[in-house]
């Protein structure tokens, strides 16, 4: 197995730069260099993360102080916050856009777009992606999707407001009397998602093709860094899952524009029976979650991969259970396609089918648990360098545990009767997916920033960013578990005495949200300042973290083609840390005499 050498002669690509006129436009904008495309994804992702985070502050204000007015809101949002109070219609628009932006634009495109692009060629020893052109197009489709979504904020009826899950019939009828955001705003949402899916598919196909075909000599599958495994599996998930959403959205738009009834049946509006006949809203839910659940793994896999890498590099210790890590990712990938209806236990789906999904859902907790135990064992008896990426990686493990255990509650349909669509779910997925995936992303940014920009980020600001985020993140989302009986997606709680016991907790969570946001400002300052003015990386310190992987064998500012001379050859797996009498044994270092490959 380890002798497999899917080696391709790519020497023709070695001096890529020489063949092309490289203008400013082709270097920075319409670049086909995977490293530049990665940075484009990253910066666009950061832009969206900022917007998405800002939106959450607006609606957290409403949740904390439902009866106060904030004149500044009116000056910022105009008629959406007349008199300084967010309108309920716009509250729902904000929540919807917040979810869409963070799930898709930040944690899907921003996360795997950045790291799949950046790391795959550099770590497998390839000059670029299998198809650099497709790769560029994948970014530009994402960019176009971003433009459409962004513009939808500025139309008169406002952006989509029927939830990031886009359930019909609320989003299934093009009637602003039913829901203001279900007019043009939702058409734009669909348009944006369509572009997004095209972009994501182009990218994913490329990632898989690259990993399979373009590994350098000696880089067998079992010598691949875990992050590459994770990114490849992410791409497979995307290729298989996103088409379901595209189909779902297509049919939804037929219902909206052409009057078909895929998702609609016997709708009565103000005593007026509509012509829709024979469809079912549940079909949409099935299609949506057929993407939607794998989507959560699309988000978390890259983070898991990054964390495996970072923990091992900074512990100077091999990832514990390399093969188990790959197998558990694979198991999650497969089982992840058979759990979607755990989002639908009480939507009217047959209770008998529900049971099947309980079994698969709790089954998936086993590979998740294996990963956690393996990470913990990875740091056990390591020599842990607490650099900023390492802090975020440890934070990730903590968050993944805290958010994962509540999945055990939710996956058990009996308990989910009470918990479905409550704040408990909000707490669960924000910790396990939202905050944890962000931690993975930041770990990656701090880790590979020097490779991306040839400069270092400021570590002190990194620590402030870390502590603000983890303390604030827990303060926002941990208390939500106690609101297990309180429905989510509520503009205010004062209509119910049952849900009105958490007023001061809501204030607390909002203040914590501001803390988290402030920590992100620190990150932004650090990121953009260091990009231009940070401490420079020098030729005599090309491997600042002491990592074994190939990306650190390139020069400070690798050109298009990555390695100036020949491609590096791989002789060992990436986790030969603290063995062989040395702390690091880079992958391209030939085996010593009598030494056996791992």
């Amino acid at each position, binding site marked *: 197995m380890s002798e497999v050498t899917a080696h391709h002669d790519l020497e023709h690509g070695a001096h890529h730069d020489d063949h092309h006129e490289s203008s400013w436009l082709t270097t920075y904008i319409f670049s086909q260099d995977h490293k530049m495309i990665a940075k484009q994804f990253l910066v666009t992702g950061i832009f969206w993360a900022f917007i998405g985070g800002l939106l959450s502050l607006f609606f957290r204000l409403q949740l904390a102080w439902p009866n106060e007015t904030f004149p500044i809101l009116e000056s910022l949002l105009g008629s959406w916050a007349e008199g300084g109070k967010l309108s309920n219609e716009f509250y729902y628009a904000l929540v919807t856009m917040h979810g869409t932006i963070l799930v898709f634009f930040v944690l899907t495109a921003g996360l795997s777009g950045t790291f799949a692009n950046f790391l795959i060629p550099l770590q497998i020893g390839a000059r670029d992606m299998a198809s650099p052109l497709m790769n560029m197009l994948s970014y530009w489709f994402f960019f176009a999707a971003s433009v459409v979504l962004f513009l939808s904020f500025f139309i008169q009826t406002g952006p989509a407001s029927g939830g990031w899950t886009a359930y019909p019939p609320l989003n299934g009828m093009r009637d602003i009397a039913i829901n203001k955001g279900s007019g043009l705003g939702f058409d734009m949402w669909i348009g944006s998602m369509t572009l997004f899916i095209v972009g994501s598919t182009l990218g994913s196909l490329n990632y898989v093709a690259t990993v399979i075909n373009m590994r350098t000599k000696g880089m067998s599958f079992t010598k691949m860094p875990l992050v590459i495994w994770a990114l490849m599996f992410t791409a497979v998930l995307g290729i298989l899952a996103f088409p379901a959403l595209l189909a779902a959205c297509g049919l939804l738009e037929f219902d909206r524009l052409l009057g078909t009834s895929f998702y609609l049946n016997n709708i009565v509006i103000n005593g007026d*029976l509509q012509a829709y006949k024979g469809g079912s809203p549940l079909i949409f839910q099935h299609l949506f979650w057929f993407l939607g659940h794998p989507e959560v793994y699309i988000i978390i896999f890259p983070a898991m991969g990054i964390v495996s890498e970072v923990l091992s590099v900074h512990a100077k210790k091999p*990832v514990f259970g390399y093969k188990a890590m790959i197998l558990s990712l694979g198991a999650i990938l497969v089982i992840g396609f058979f759990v979607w209806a755990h989002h639908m236990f009480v939507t009217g789906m047959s209770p008998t089918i529900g049971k099947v999904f309980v079994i698969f859902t709790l089954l998936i907790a086993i590979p998740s648990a294996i990963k956690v135990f*393996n990470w913990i064992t990875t740091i056990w008896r390591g020599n*842990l360098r607490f650099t900023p990426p390492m802090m975020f990686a440890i934070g990730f493990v903590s968050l993944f*545990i805290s958010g994962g255990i509540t999945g055990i509650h939710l996956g058990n349909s009996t308990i989910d009767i009470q918990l479905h*669509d409550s704040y408990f779910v909000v707490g669960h997925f924000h910790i396990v997916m939202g905050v944890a995936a962000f931690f993975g992303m930041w770990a990656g940014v701090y880790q590979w920033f020097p490779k991306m920009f040839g400069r270092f980020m400021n570590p002190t600001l990194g620590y*402030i960013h870390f502590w603000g985020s983890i303390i604030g993140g827990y303060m926002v989302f941990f208390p939500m578990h106690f609101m297990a009986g309180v429905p989510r997606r509520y503009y205010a709680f004062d209509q119910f005495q049952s849900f009105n016991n958490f007023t001061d907790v809501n204030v607390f969570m909002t203040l914590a949200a501001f803390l988290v946001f402030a920590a992100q400002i620190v990150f932004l300052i650090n990121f953009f300042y260091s990009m231009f003015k940070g401490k420079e990386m020098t030729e005599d310190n090309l491997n600042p973290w002491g990592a074994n992987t190939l990306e650190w064998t390139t020069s400070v500012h690798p050109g298009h083609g990555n390695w100036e001379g020949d491609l590096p050859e791989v002789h060992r797996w990436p986790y030969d840390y*603290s063995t062989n009498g040395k702390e690091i044994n880079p992958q391209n270092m030939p085996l010593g005499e009598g030494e056996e490959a791992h």
Partner: protein
Amino acid sequence: MGTTILALLAVVLFFTIIFFVAKASELSSIGKDANEEMESTSNLQGKLLFAFLILGLGAVAWSFFELGPRMLPQAASEHGVLIDDMFNITTVVAMLVFVLTHIALLSFAYMYRYRRDKQAYFFPHSNKLEMIWTVIPAIVLTFLVFRGISAWNQIFDFEKLEGNTEVLKFEATAKQFGWILRYPGPDGEFGNRIIDSEHINQMNELGIDWEDKNSHDDFFADEIVLVKGKPTIVKLGAQDVLHGFYLPHFRVKMDCVPGMPTQFMFTPAYTTQEYQALLSTKKYWQQINPETGNPKWQDFTFELACTELCGKSHFAMQKVVRVVTQEEYDKWVIEKNRSYYYSVINPDASPELVEVAPVELVVDSLLEVVDSTLMEVVAAH
């Protein structure tokens, strides 16, 4: 305006100071030995992580005491106890995992923080360990799945009520933004609904077939009234978009889907009064509600809420739920005494014209009320 600018300036100043302090520390480390630098940083961060463990666990424990009492009180329905038990067992398991893994993670972080003179231990895998932590979760999860599914089977076992005439039925149809609550009246049978544009109109949103005599004693309510100990089936539907029928205290939740009927079955375990009495023993519920001046438990009511995003007023679809004794219920039904059919659809018809049971039943239950009052009077002597 002035204060806004001031506040903005303060914020900018705040970040500027942080920035310069951080930058200064970076500059001051130039020229120092990198390993020594890493050792002192790792020492500090490792200790902070350990402090985070201790303070974090403390905060979690504290939150159970502080926030726990604000959670919904115990289940007010029979099956709700199954759900709560499941929740509690799972929480115990989850907290155990949470605490143990965090202790391991963060104390390892502390114990193995970087030292110049140390080397990490090369430990790439161990089949035995990995076996252990595959099998243990598998066993625990199997246990949870079995318990969960057996409770689920009981909760959705609609057959157990078949042929049971003592079942209370009502119908809840959701629409933007409210509930249409229909009771079958004394005959216990709902009138038919016909979904066509002939039957459905603004006067008859549900499309009730007034030809169907079963409909004549059906009545609409604007609160849900239930009977303690009486198995109840709620028939659910929606007019326009998805809604969710949620009775928080009864652990009842089921979506209302346009064009697809759904249902849920439950049995209230306490009357509202009994439940209030139960709450009155709890510290949290003895606090005074500042709005009314009463202790919280006194103002308590069961409620119905919507749990599926249905538009701009999703958060305001509230109805009161009352659980009463059978006698009180019968009295309520009679007091209601305004079947929609006789009061609105066909006011000229007189109830006597209907051959079916309603009138008899009404009389019956009236007699029962009288009976039981008499019994009480007798007993009192």
